[in-house]
């Protein structure tokens, strides 16, 4: 999730170490591990030519096989010993905050525990070493994994069918909007259906995906309750409406409780309803987008289904559709034929109405294995309980923080909620960004800040279900201490972080004189 502060304060005047944090609370091992100090030289600055690792046998030279003009001259990569490589990347890992090191309440990102058994299963040789062009009959296990996963997702979310083709949420949004375009083309109305409606709380990928399909984006202001107003929506609906993209609960963590009216209005106007499933952890097993009138949706398996984010990816973003849109799903689709001794699974490429493939091969398969493992580990009941506990954790924290920060929409939230530092900023000059940085000093990751855009100085907090009450208590106490520090000694907060490896960065310099590679 983005961090979009209006203006960055320069941290150059910060005097480090001298301003020890006074009102710290003891959080013991709940905090992220302390990161070791000092710079790590770039891999290009270490090693010596000729310090090679012997992974491969010696043999003949390239010139014996290929004409000189097709060959490369210098290959200017560093040669490091294996131990140097191990130390280098071990050090880099120690300088990286992660779920495994500490509490990561990054709103809209669902930073839950990523079970290790998932990784072990994805790494089974039968999955890991299976080539995508292996004939279907020799890949029945993989196809069954895909088929079962897509079927379970369809049942869980009330869609007719899912395709595992897209690689991430945004990629699935693109697939879904291409499906919408194909749907309108089939009805002969794609020339008229030119707009996509996106609430102002929507994630940036929604409008960006719409633009990639040539749609005009109409932004819809949230009402006083932080939700889409049915009347406001009606005002923008028309014969030009193609799709209305909604996140439910929305990025304020609020359930769109008039969703059935919204869906009815959009359908009446001839449009399609799209469900951005980034927040599916709030309702999985308890309510289904399909029952709310959504025609299209995506899931971020790397949020709800415990796939590790890996520092920004890879994710996995299945796209789901209602019955009338199944024919447009991207290729290939995994099919199952019964009748023989065993069901036979196959990749189906022969789908004339399909929007075509979205990627080189069939899916981010290793992640499909992880997601299926997670579903089987928890079972249908467990998945429902996971959502309930995620919502409990968020509400518990919301109530605990009520008298610490402003909670602009202070009602029962779902899996996340937003707080605002606007009153604090007026009183002390301390902003959401400063609070975020102060949390880093105290061993916690920061919440998502400055998103959604409609809440000024916003902190979007998503604890997830895998965090204990003790962790939530410690986090609340720490935030309380930071806010107290803001009142008594605001500089101690605006100068944070002072205990991290580096202080606030000169981002202006990074953007004005971009240095994107070593040379």
């Amino acid at each position: 999730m983005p961090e979009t502060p209006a203006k960055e304060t320069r941290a150059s005047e910060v005097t480090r170490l001298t301003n020890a944090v006074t009102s710290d609370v003891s959080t013991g091992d709940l905090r992220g591990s302390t990161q070791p100090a000092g710079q790590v030289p770039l891999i290009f600055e270490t090693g010596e030519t000729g310090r090679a690792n012997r992974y491969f046998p010696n043999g003949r030279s390239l010139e014996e096989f290929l004409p000189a003009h097709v060959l490369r001259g210098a290959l200017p990569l560093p040669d490091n010993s294996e131990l140097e490589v191990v130390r280098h990347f071990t050090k880099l890992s120690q300088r990286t905050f992660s779920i495994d090191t500490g509490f990561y309440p990054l709103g809209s990102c669902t930073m839950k525990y990523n079970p290790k058994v998932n990784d072990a299963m994805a790494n089974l040789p039968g999955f890991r070493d299976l080539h995508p062009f292996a004939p279907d009959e020799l890949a029945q296990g993989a196809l069954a994994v895909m088929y079962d996963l897509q079927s379970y997702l369809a049942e869980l979310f009330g869609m007719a069918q899912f395709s595992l083709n897209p690689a991430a949420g945004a990629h699935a949004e693109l697939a879904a909007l291409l499906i919408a375009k194909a749907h309108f083309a089939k009805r002969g109305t794609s020339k008229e259906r030119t707009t996509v409606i996106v609430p102002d709380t929507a994630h940036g990928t929604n409008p960006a995906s719409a633009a990639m399909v040539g749609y005009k984006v109409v932004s819809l202001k949230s009402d006083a309750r932080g939700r889409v107003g049915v009347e406001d929506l009606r005002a923008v609906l028309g014969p030009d409406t193609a799709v209305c993209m909604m996140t439910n609960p929305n990025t304020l963590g609020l359930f769109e409780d008039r969703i059935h009216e919204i869906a009815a209005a959009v359908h009446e106007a001839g449009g399609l309803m799209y469900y951005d499933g980034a927040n599916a952890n709030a309702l999985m097993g308890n309510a289904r987008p399909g029952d709310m009138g959504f025609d299209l949706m995506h899931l971020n398996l790397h949020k709800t289904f415990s796939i590790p984010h890996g520092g920004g990816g890879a994710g996995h973003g299945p796209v789901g559709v209602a019955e009338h849109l199944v024919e447009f799903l991207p290729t290939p689709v995994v099919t199952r034929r019964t009748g023989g001794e065993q069901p036979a699974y196959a990749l189906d490429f022969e789908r004339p109405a399909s929007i075509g493939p979205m990627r080189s091969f069939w899916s981010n398969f290793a992640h499909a294995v992880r997601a299926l493992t997670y579903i089987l580990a928890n079972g249908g009941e467990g998945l429902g309980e996971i959502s309930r506990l995620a919502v409990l954790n968020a509400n518990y924290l919301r109530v605990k923080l009520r008298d610490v920060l402003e909670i602009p929409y202070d009602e029962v939230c779902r899996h996340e909620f937003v707080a605002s530092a606007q009153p604090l900023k007026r009183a002390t000059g301390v902003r959401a960004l400063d609070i975020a940085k102060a949390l880093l000093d105290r061993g916690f990751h920061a919440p998502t800040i400055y998103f959604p855009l409609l809440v000024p100085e916003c902190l979007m907090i998503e604890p997830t279900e895998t965090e204990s009450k003790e962790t939530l208590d410690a986090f609340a106490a720490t935030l309380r201490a930071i806010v107290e520090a803001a009142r008594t000694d605001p500089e101690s907060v605006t100068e944070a972080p002072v205990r991290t490896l580096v202080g606030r960065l000169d981002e202006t310099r990074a953007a004005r004189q971009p240095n994107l590679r070593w040379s």
Partner: protein
Amino acid sequence: MPQPEGLLYSKEHEWAKFDGDVATVGITDYAQNSLGDIVYVELPRVGSAVAQFASIGVVESVKAVSDLFSPVGGEVVEDNATLEADPAAVNRDPYGAGWLYKVKVSDLAQRGLLMSAADYDAMVAATGT
């Protein structure tokens, strides 16, 4: 700070300085100040046609982007190539070295749709910030 005289202003915080039928365009001090450190300016291509008040480029700060709306319409005849290497000029000297581009104005009557320095000041004052 009060706006320089002799320039005309748009609601979208751009200024235009007319020299015959050629207008030099920039953003106001208020605009540069609210954007923060400007890191990049995307200018219209020389030779392209722009319509008055149409969106023709963007100004980027570290974590925000603002559309540029041309205060005048006509043909772009020159752009400020130095901004490529020194976008900070827009922050330092928005009415001088930080100018953006020049337009051969198609119709001088467009001036009637722009504000005087005093009117622009009043508009900014009314916005509050």
